[in-house]
């Protein structure tokens, strides 16, 4: 049994056999040929090389046409590698003399070259290993030895173990078979973490190097609550985790009975409980779990899941689907909230040494109207189908808010002039996630219809902590008293001006913290679909006085740790069912 510690990013427990994705993601079994198959196999390899060669040549021409000759030369070098006489001789030798299958020979030889390049202590050349592995992948695809993704043809349940898993890979995991995953890299604030939570896949990231210690089919336990991964568990450990898994399932079953009951305290104080989503298909879960609406629709995945920027039509289709399926319940769409560092196709990233303080989110949108306009147009067009509201992220100055609102008006006029069906009288809100906005909130509040506090960014900017930086991630706590005071201030301003205020950060998804927020006067939370019922359970188990007492006590504490310990204590007292070991 081996126990590994990583960062828990998506709660839950998963037990199953490991599927290890190595760096290249392929595993070609050693297979030998009969003597009379050798010539045919050599011919098959030659055909594959020709096909890949043709593709590389057209890649080179296309890239050179778009990005210039020099960039196109990347593929010229790949072509040169493909036709390398030493490489070809070695492949022929392995097939002719060692009777290896073409796929196996390709995989071995190119892996050896990649390994040799990685060993050089020259980052520029070490990166060329990626080119070599890319050639391997293309040859293997062409030989029919692998399908597009090793994850595409799963037929039994697995736990994915990988060096890295990109957000789109995570989004495409087959949930029927993938029970959870763990990766060597990654941090708590990454998009992969958010997707995992959205998919309710238990996940642990940032474990550090461990893949060399584990093979396919090793039994693995992923403990997404504590950030623990156990390889090859002993019978005792396995039994205790199986028990936990069973308890969780029975809790889930019990919670599902709450679906049609209102989120209100014992003494009848109502709480609006909405859901945060990334993908249109998540609306199904939201409705199943009785969400009052979508409090935060993150639109970044329209940008991240494809190499091309989404068109107005892509936006429109996605938003229309969500608002139709929510059937009259409000849907709050947050406009693009990405940093220049994530927008690969925008040639802006080079000088982004400090992306969190850089050109991101609303700043990026306002500087790239060709990007922003289609999104705003799509929002107004989709608004004819239901209760859509728009929300601008990372608003720091009044000028930004006014500019964004003005652009929304211009877009509405354009739609009006061209006779395109749309609805422009939709509520406009802002995310409160920069301390400057909290400080100036009495001014902002007069120019918006609603406020939504993004606790993740608010904590990050208040505490000066990059939450994806593992060296300081422990300093990042949304229950830090400084953050709580800012939230208290927002509640006060919103109340004085009679503006709806919601909290949509990760903070509200924690049932104990939700009770605190209720006690602080917050009456609208937006949480991941996976947390809807737990938070509802917590709210329905307390009186508003109890929550207010919690808040009063917490506001006297000095450290995030004290806050969380105290809250956990209260949760154990009021809602013991939610404490899972």
């Amino acid at each position, binding site marked *: 049994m081996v126990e590994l510690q990583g960062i828990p990013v998506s709660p839950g427990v998963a037990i199953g056999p490991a599927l290890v994705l190595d760096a290249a993601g392929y595993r070609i079994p050693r297979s030998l040929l009969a003597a009379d198959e050798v010539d045919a196999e050599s011919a098959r390899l030659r055909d594959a090389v020709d096909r890949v060669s043709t593709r590389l040549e057209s890649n080179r021409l296309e890239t050179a046409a778009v990005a210039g000759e020099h960039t196109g030369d990347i593929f010229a070098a790949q072509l040169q590698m493909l036709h390398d006489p030493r490489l070809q001789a070695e492949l022929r030798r392995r097939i002719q003399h060692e009777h290896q299958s073409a796929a196996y020979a390709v995989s071995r030889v190119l892996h050896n070259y990649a390994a*040799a390049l990685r060993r050089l202590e020259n980052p520029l050349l070490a990166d060329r290993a990626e080119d070599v592995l890319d050639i391997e992948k293309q040859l293997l695809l062409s030989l029919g030895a692998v399908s597009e993704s090793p994850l595409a043809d799963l037929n039994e349940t697995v736990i994915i173990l990988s060096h890295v898993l990109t957000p789109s890979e995570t989004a495409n995991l087959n949930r029927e078979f993938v029970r959870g995953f763990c990766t060597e890299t990654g941090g708590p604030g990454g998009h992969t973490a958010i997707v995992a939570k959205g998919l309710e896949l238990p996940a642990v990231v940032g474990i550090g190097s461990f893949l060399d210690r584990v093979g396919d089919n090793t039994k693995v336990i992923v403990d997404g609550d504590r950030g623990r991964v156990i390889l090859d568990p002993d019978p005792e450990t396995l039994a205790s985790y199986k028990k936990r898994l069973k308890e969780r399932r029975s809790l889930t079953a019990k919670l599902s009975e709450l679906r049609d009951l209102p989120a209100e305290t014992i003494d009848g104080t109502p709480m609006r409980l909405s859901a945060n989503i990334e993908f249109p298909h998540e609306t199904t879960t939201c409705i199943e779990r009785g969400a009052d609406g979508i409090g935060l629709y993150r639109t970044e995945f329209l940008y991240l899941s494809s190499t091309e920027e989404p068109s107005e039509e892509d936006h429109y289709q996605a938003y229309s689907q969500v608002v139709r399926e929510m059937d009259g319940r409000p849907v709050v769409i947050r406009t693009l909230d990405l940093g220049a560092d994530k927008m690969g196709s925008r040639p802006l990233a080079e000088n982004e040494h400090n992306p969190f303080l850089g050109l991101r989110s609303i700043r990026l949108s306002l500087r790239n109207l060709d990007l922003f306009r289609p999104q705003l147009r799509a929002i107004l067009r989709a608004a004819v189908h239901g209760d859509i509201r728009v929300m601008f992220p990372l608003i720091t100055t009044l000028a930004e808010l006014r500019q964004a609102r003005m652009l929304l008006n211009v877009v509405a006029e354009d739609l009006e002039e061209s006779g395109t069906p749309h609805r422009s009288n939709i509520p406009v809100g802002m995310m409160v996630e920069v301390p400057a906005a909290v400080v100036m909130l009495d001014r902002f509040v007069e120019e918006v219809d609603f406020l939504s506090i993004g606790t993740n960014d608010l904590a990050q900017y208040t505490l000066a902590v990059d939450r994806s930086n593992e060296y300081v991630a422990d300093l990042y706590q949304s229950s830090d008293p400084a953050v709580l005071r800012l939230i208290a201030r927002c509640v006060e301003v919103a109340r004085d001006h009679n503006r709806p205020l919601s909290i949509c950060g990760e903070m509200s998804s924690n049932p104990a913290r939700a009770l605190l927020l209720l006690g602080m006067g917050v009456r609208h939370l937006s949480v991941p679909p996976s947390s809807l019922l737990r938070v509802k359970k917590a709210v329905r188990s307390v009186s508003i006085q109890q929550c207010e007492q919690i808040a009063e006590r917490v506001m006297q504490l000095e450290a995030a740790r004290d806050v969380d310990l105290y809250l956990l204590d209260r949760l154990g007292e009021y809602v013991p069912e939610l404490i899972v070991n």
Partner: protein
Amino acid sequence: MSKAHCRTVVVSNPQGLHARPADLLVRLANQFGSTILIGRGGEMVDCKSILSLLTLGAALGTELSLSAEGDDAENAIDSIEQFFLRGFDEPGAENSDSAIAG
């Protein structure tokens, strides 16, 4: 009748013998019928194999021995030496001095 020609060349561009110059070097070497080897220490590799060239990991300032054997060996050695002296014709590096200074 052919005889082996030998010479020493130095990598003079800041980024070393990376993918693009290696590609160009192979193309240059392929213009000659001679067998051309390049390397350092005892490790000599085929100058017409880009993967072998890259695995040399030759950075700025690396000294490489060059040898060619064949009918056009002398020509080959001269051309390749010139290519090294020109800093692999990298854009922005009209001559090797400015590349190093910049």
